[in-house]
């Protein structure tokens, strides 16, 4: 039950905050979250031999609703542990970053942060569907209150929209998950929500009964996408995001972008890909097209934004499109890229939200037209801004490039004729999505050009709010301290992605285990329908064994 402490400690921290004096709340939470971070790093070492494999370690379970098969079972494989590390790293930074921004209702604020951390960690560690769902949903509550109590002027609308949108989606997801569990129960004779069991059942069946049919899988895919796609968010289900981001307090935006959105992609990775391979193979092109539309659509919208924060929010939509595209490439490169994207987007977009927050704390505005050339007033800030923008743009040598590149090359090579992992996308998908790279450079650099560079123009501080910022013109050491770890990681990942990609290899191979056979099977079916389906000379290399039941693990 080593992993359980990752959830329990923040919960205890939350309780501790409630009894601490308000002015000490931030220190308490910072201490607790730092301890959790250190502990998670220790766990990463304890996890040691399991890195690079698809095994789950740090497992443990407590029975809860036994008769209906619900246990609280935890465990981590390499991907989930990495995401846990991302969470535990960001949380102390968020708390540290909020020291001056939050001035009232301190205990509640930090209490919610702790709860949020517990819930997010729970999502990544859950090995039981229902426990996963509980944590997945519960993240809404702290976020709701963070926006509702500490947000901007339009926060009421933002938090309700955020809540209801994601809640609606996940209700449908719950139905889909229950359906899988039911089918399992029908055959097994008892209910179980163990993710591993259900996954193996969904694909391979149980006791000589077949797994889920393609028709069922399609419906389940739809149900699961309803929840996860909203969370990601995929076009056209993204409209809650800009609003929520714009209104949330800085730390809230950071967490929202860095971790909460990843819950959606993590859901896709953990449930959609392994559980419904037949449907995924059938609908991956459609999802990829939606993702690509999202990439370009959001990118163009970013271009015309005036509010910096909204711009970055829309850029999240655009970026996560790449992430989903990589996921549905269904080959190791794409999925590696996608998981890397989850980490990298967390680091760079998180940092960008921090930076915007720092500006907002000083000038109480984020309107691009009101400020210009801030590099002159705050060179350190400008350095970090440009740095993270470049990371976000995908400059090689920084982290963003790694993931973007892998996602695109994954999608590119995901054509039916690819060797070990044939896919259902292809060059065109990647080529069109890659236009997003260009547009991303446009809108981000235009933003930088307007805000960071150019002749100095500082917004008049709104006296109506009555609060003159107590902060110095440029960043304080605390603020630099928040950004530096992120920047260091960005560079490290940029030059040593192997640390991470190698760690995830096994898990990703496990997730993709079904796909080569499934795709080939579908190709055979398609070919039966259309003997000359590609006049461009695409020749299929057909494996000798085309039995879908036989899965070729290592070729």
């Amino acid at each position, binding site marked *: 039950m080593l992993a359980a402490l990752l959830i329990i400690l923040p919960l205890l921290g939350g309780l501790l905050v409630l009894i601490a004096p308000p002015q000490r709340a931030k220190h308490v939470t910072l201490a607790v979250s730092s301890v959790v971070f250190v502990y998670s790093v220790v766990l990463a070492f304890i996890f040691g031999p399991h890195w690079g494999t698809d095994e789950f370690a740090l497992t443990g379970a407590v029975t809860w*609703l036994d008769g209906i098969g619900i246990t609280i079972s935890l465990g981590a494989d390499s991907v989930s542990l990495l995401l846990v590390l991302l969470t535990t790293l960001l949380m102390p930074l968020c708390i540290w970053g909020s020291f001056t921004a939050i001035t009232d209702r301190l205990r509640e604020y930090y209490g919610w942060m702790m709860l949020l951390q517990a819930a997010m960690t729970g999502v990544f560690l859950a090995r039981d569907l229902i426990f996963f769902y509980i944590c997945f949903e519960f993240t809404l509550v702290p976020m709701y209150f963070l926006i509702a109590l500490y947000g901007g002027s339009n926060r009421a609308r933002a938090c309700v929209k955020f809540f209801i949108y994601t809640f609606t989606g996940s209700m*449908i997801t719950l*139905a889909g998950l229950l359906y899988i*569990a039911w089918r399992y129960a029908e055959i097994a004779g*008892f*209910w179980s929500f163990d993710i591993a069991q259900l996954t193996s059942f969904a694909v391979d069946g149980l006791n000589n009964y077949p797994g889920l049919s393609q028709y069922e899988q399609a419906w389940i895919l739809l149900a699961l996408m309803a929840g996860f796609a909203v969370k990601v968010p995929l076009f056209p289900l993204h409209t809650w995001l800009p609003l929520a981001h714009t209104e949330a307090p800085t730390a809230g935006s950071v967490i929202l972008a860095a971790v909460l959105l990843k819950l959606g992609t993590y859901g896709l990775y953990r449930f959609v890909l392994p559980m419904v391979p037949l449907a995924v193979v059938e609908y991956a092109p459609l999802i990829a097209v939606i993702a690509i539309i999202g990439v370009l659509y959001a990118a163009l919208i970013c271009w015309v934004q005036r509010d910096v924060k909204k711009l970055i929010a829309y850029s999240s939509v655009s970026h996560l499109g790449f992430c989903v595209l990589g996921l549905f490439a269904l080959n190791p490169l794409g999925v590696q890229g996608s998981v890397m994207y989850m980490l990298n987007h967390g680091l760079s977009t998180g940092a960008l939200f921090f930076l915007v927050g720092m500006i907002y704390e000083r000038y109480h505005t984020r309107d691009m037209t009101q400020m210009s050339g801030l590099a002159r007033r705050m060179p350190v800030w400008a350095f970090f801004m440009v740095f993270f923008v470049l990371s976000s743009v995908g400059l090689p040598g920084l982290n963003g490039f790694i993931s973007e590149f892998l996602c695109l090359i994954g999608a590119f090579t995901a054509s039916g004729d690819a060797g070990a992992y044939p896919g259902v996308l292809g060059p065109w998908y990647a080529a069109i999505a890659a236009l997003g790279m260009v547009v991303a450079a446009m809108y981000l650099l235009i933003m930088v050009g307007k805000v960071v560079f150019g002749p100095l123009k500082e917004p008049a501080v709104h006296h109506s709010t009555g609060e003159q910022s107590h902060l110095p013109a440029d960043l304080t050491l605390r603020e630099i301290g928040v950004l530096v770890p992120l920047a260091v990681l960005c560079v490290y990942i940029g030059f040593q992605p192997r640390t991470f990609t190698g760690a995830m290899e096994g898990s990703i191979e496990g997730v993709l285990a079904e796909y080569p056979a499934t795709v080939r099977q579908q190709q055979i079916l398609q070919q039966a329908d259309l003997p000359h389906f590609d006049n461009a000379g695409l020749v299929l290399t057909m494996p000798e064994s085309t039995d879908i039941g036989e899965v070729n693990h290592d070729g």
Partner: protein
Amino acid sequence: MADKIWFLIPELILLAGVVVVSVLGLSPRKMLRDCLPAVTIAFLLIACVVTPFLYDSDHVSRFHSVMPMLGKYVNMMVCIVGILLALTSAGLIDRRQEASVQSGRAVFDALRANRGEYYAFFLLSLIGVMLCAHANDLIWLFLALELTSLPTYVMVAMSRPSRLAQEAAVKYFFLGAMASAMFLYGFALLYGSTGTIVLTEMQAVFTQQADSEAGINTLGIVGMLLALLGIFYKIAAAPMHFYAADVYEGAAAPVTAFLAFVPKTAGMLAIIMLLSTMGWFSPSGNLPQPILTMLWMVAVLTMTLGNIGALLQRSVKRMLAYSSIAHSGYMLIGIIAGPAAGGTGIDGLGAVLFYLLAYGIMNTAAFSVLAGLERNGQEIESLEELAGMRMRHGLMAAVIAISAGSLLGFPPLLGFVGKLYLFIAGVNAGQIALVVIAGLNSAISAWYYLSIVRQSIMAQPGPQSEVVVRGEAIWPRCAAFLAALAVIIVPIFSWGLMKAADRVTNSPDQLDLLSETQAYQAVKTDSRNP
């Protein structure tokens, strides 16, 4: 006969309580009058404690009922929620009179005092519910239902000295009488179809009919439909739900809480009793198609109409009234699923019973907050009056937010566990569409539950909410706190409760099957954690 009396001991205890409180209520000594809620609670506690000892296997095996174990769970549930409700009601009745007695402006006049009667009716109604669980013939069921309802009519009327309360009572009573007539007529047809009023015998007859070529005869089906529709009035299910909003709004908050739980429980029990005669325990295990169709439609209509109705409300009580309608719809999923559907040990009825308890607790929490605060001597009602509660009454704000979350079915609160169980039961019975509709309904309901949260936690106090103060009696707020605590803590231990709810609906011969399933699950659990 003795066996029957044996199981009625809790009811008899409460009956004694009725006598005691109605006498005590007339006492000229204020202290005695003031301890009426305590006395009520004491009797409820005794009844609750006594119950488990009654259900030993020896007696149960001699108890000829469709569901011999049902009473155990229901008695305890009713007593526990009853305690919360009694706390909520404390200080409600005769407030004006007591105040003038207190200030010395008037002397106590026993003829004008209602407090004793109120608690007597309170207990009588609870007795009605308990009797529903023990019913083994139609007469008993009919009388139990009437015993549950009739006191509530009076309670509504006496709950507050307001025209609204009386209007509510009239509507409740008249429409209730119509509904009673309907299910009575349905009972008559059922009797006509089977020639017996004893439920176990009816069950045998219907099973026989179902096995025959002709199937269950039309008279029986029509009678069942009519009886169910009549009883739907008790659970405020569509289309018999129209009264709910008005009545709940008109009655005082504690009584509304009572109405939302007690008649609903009685109705659910009656529905379970009636349906258990028809199909569930037959070899096929299914309800007849028309019944199922009707239940399905009613479930969908109920939850949808309840939720969309609630969306428009500015009055919290009205909103919760509609939400109560919607919750009946959710519970009907469990009814549709039926007991032990699919042979996987998931019991739809258990889910309903568990949900009733959950609903009783969380709903009481919400209403207790309304009862515990007041504005100009009136209990608070509208959303505007909740505004900024967080700053003035932080604990109450937390309670109402928690109960709203739980009513919404938000994990990991009690309402979620209940709803999850219902959904699993529904899916288990193959009712995927129904569960999806229920899920979407939950999403719709998020709108108005969130508006409660938003008003109480986020909004700044407005002119209407600034004058909201704590009520005189501390007990409603205690009830609110206890219930909210339960909403948070009970989920952790809910499997014990579920198991209790699960076993009750199984007839004795099925208990063996259940233990087998559990043994299987034990094996499964072992294989999972080698």
